[in-house]
């Protein structure tokens, strides 16, 4: 397993990248197809190709910055568990000054991007996945996979159904080997947490984790830490109550940070959840280009779920003027989709997300969630009761029999 995955990684990182394009023209309005850093087919014009080439060069430069720091601060300086920014509960006083300086340096550095080759070990460390993994016996993942092999549940059926529908056409994910690997991670997780089981959306998240992490086992632990520690509780369970909470929190934040835009969107009957639900469930993996998604995840794993709000707000913020002109729901959606699909330059998005959107703290988000929870629960409960009353009608004699 490790062998095949490692060679797969090599093909991502070290193969001289030749754009697989059929550009026979320099005209910018011709659409070309090519593969990006992670093997996804991208359709774009020549400008997009140029931007992606610039991004690739920036990734290389950022790699050199990381190596230089490694030389001055010592190997693996960023792996010290106490310097991750995610645990904001730790009081600053309890940190040594040198560790604090490293925390700040690392936070800045991560916002500029983790080099793809370092992502597996940096993600494991900053997210807390390595710590989680260290609390169970070394054989945990292999034992889990062996124990669930051949078992059929509602979750495994749905997973099997979704395997070929997860990034179809991808050169590795959409192969028997890719399907088998994704299946093991998703099925394994569905048994680890039967409240989550399998939720559509996790297939995309797990697939990208497999592309980044060195081993399938580490992809599994990243998925575990995301669902159990990084994201809001119950984001993927039962009735997606956590996701409903996040949507309400986001709506409130948009009203606070972009009041004019928020009022305009409401006046034309546009509910931000229409676009943001997918963002919060797939963590942007279905909306943003792959390296841009990875850059969002870099910060997500270091700073926590508040990052999703920063990024979602930034997308609306970037197109505020255009969105204010839109008079129909469909127009708003087209503008947003066109924007997200073309955000090939991660810095364009992250600069707005962290410099233009004023700072949000994890505490603020936690408070907002607490505030929204009762309303979400009441709404879901009311809905459930209405649906149950439908079931009662079904049993009454005058309704059509099944």
């Amino acid at each position, binding site marked *: 397993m490790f062998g095949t995955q490692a060679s797969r990684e090599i093909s991502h990182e070290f193969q001289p990248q030749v754009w697989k394009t059929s550009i026979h023209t320099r005209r910018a309005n011709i659409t070309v197809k090519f593969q990006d850093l992670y093997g996804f087919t991208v359709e774009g014009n020549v400008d997009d190709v140029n931007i992606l080439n610039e991004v690739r060069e920036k990734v290389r430069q950022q790699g050199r910055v990381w190596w230089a720091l490694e030389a001055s601060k010592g190997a693996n300086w960023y792996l010290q568990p106490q310097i991750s920014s995610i645990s904001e509960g730790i009081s600053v006083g309890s940190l040594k000054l040198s560790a604090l300086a490293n925390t700040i340096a690392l936070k800045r550095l991560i916002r500029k991007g983790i080099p793809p080759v370092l992502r597996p070990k940096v993600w494991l460390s900053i997210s807390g996945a390595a710590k989680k993994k260290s609390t169970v016996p070394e054989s945990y993942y292999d034992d889990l996979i062996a124990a669930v092999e051949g078992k059929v549940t509602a979750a495994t059926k*749905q997973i099997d*159904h*979704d395997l*070929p*529908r*997860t*990034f*179809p056409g991808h050169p590795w994910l959409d192969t028997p080997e890719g399907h088998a690997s994704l299946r093991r991670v998703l099925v394994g997780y569905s048994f680890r947490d039967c409240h989550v089981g399998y*939720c*559509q*959306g996790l*297939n*995309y998240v797990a697939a990208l984790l497999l592309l980044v992490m060195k081993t399938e086992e580490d992809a599994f632990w990243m998925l575990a830490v995301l669902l159990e520690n990084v994201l809001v509780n119950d984001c*993927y*369970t*039962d*009735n*997606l*109550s956590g996701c*409903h909470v996040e949507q309400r929190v986001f709506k409130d934040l948009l009203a606070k940070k972009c009041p004019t835009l928020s009022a305009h969107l*409401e*006046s*034309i*009957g546009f*509910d931000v*959840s*229409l676009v943001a*639900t*997918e963002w919060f*469930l*797939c963590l942007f993996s*279905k909306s943003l280009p792959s390296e841009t998604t990875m850059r969002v995840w870099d910060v997500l794993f270091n700073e926590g779920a508040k990052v999703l709000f920063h990024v979602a707000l930034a997308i609306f913020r970037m197109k505020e003027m255009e969105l204010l002109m839109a*008079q*129909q*729901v*469909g127009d708003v*959606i087209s503008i947003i989709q066109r924007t997200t699909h073309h955000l090939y330059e991660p810095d364009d998005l992250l600069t707005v997300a962290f410099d233009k959107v004023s700072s949000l703290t994890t505490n603020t988000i936690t408070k907002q969630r607490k505030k929204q929870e009762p309303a979400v629960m009441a709404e*879901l409960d009311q*809905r459930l009761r*209405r*649906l149950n009353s*439908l079931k009662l*009608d*079904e049993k009454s004699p005058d309704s*059509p029999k*099944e």
Partner: protein
Amino acid sequence: MATIGNNNLNAKLVLLGDMGAGKSSLVLRFVKGQFLEFQESTIGAAFFSQTLAVNDATVKFEIWDTAGQERYHSLAPMYYRGAAAAIIVYDITSTESFTRAKKWVQELQKQGNPNMVMALAGNKADLEDKRKVTAEEARLYAEENGLFFMETSAKTAINVNDIFYEIARKLPRAQPAQNPTGMVLVDRPAERSQAASCCS
């Protein structure tokens, strides 16, 4: 809600049904004329628009293609609220998906717009040898519940355009209260505020 202006009708249409019944494939066939053996699973919902010419009017469909997994059910009201039409999709090779379709019909009858045009689509009609739900059974159910019924195949394109055209033809008559005299008096800004008040 369907809104009328200068013989142009804007209509919100929602697709509901079990996971893997072929909702996205029907939309893709209708909007782009394409079919993919493996269509990416939909998360939340996907939006499309397509305009049809029916007689001397045009109907612009704003289509919400929703996610089928049961737990996404709690998001559905956001998409069917104010919809002028719904296509409830099941897979003719799956009795479970037909049961699920009936539940959607019930929910829409109770919670949806009372004038909503509802269509029942038995999709994957090309898979005759794997059929589990007979056309008669579905037709009877549709008649009893005031839906119109078609068996469709996104793969072969059978009845796909037809179901959307049929909805388009049924739409104006389904909204008599909005346009009782046949004269168009409502202009666009008024429509919008109306839409906002019923959707917010």
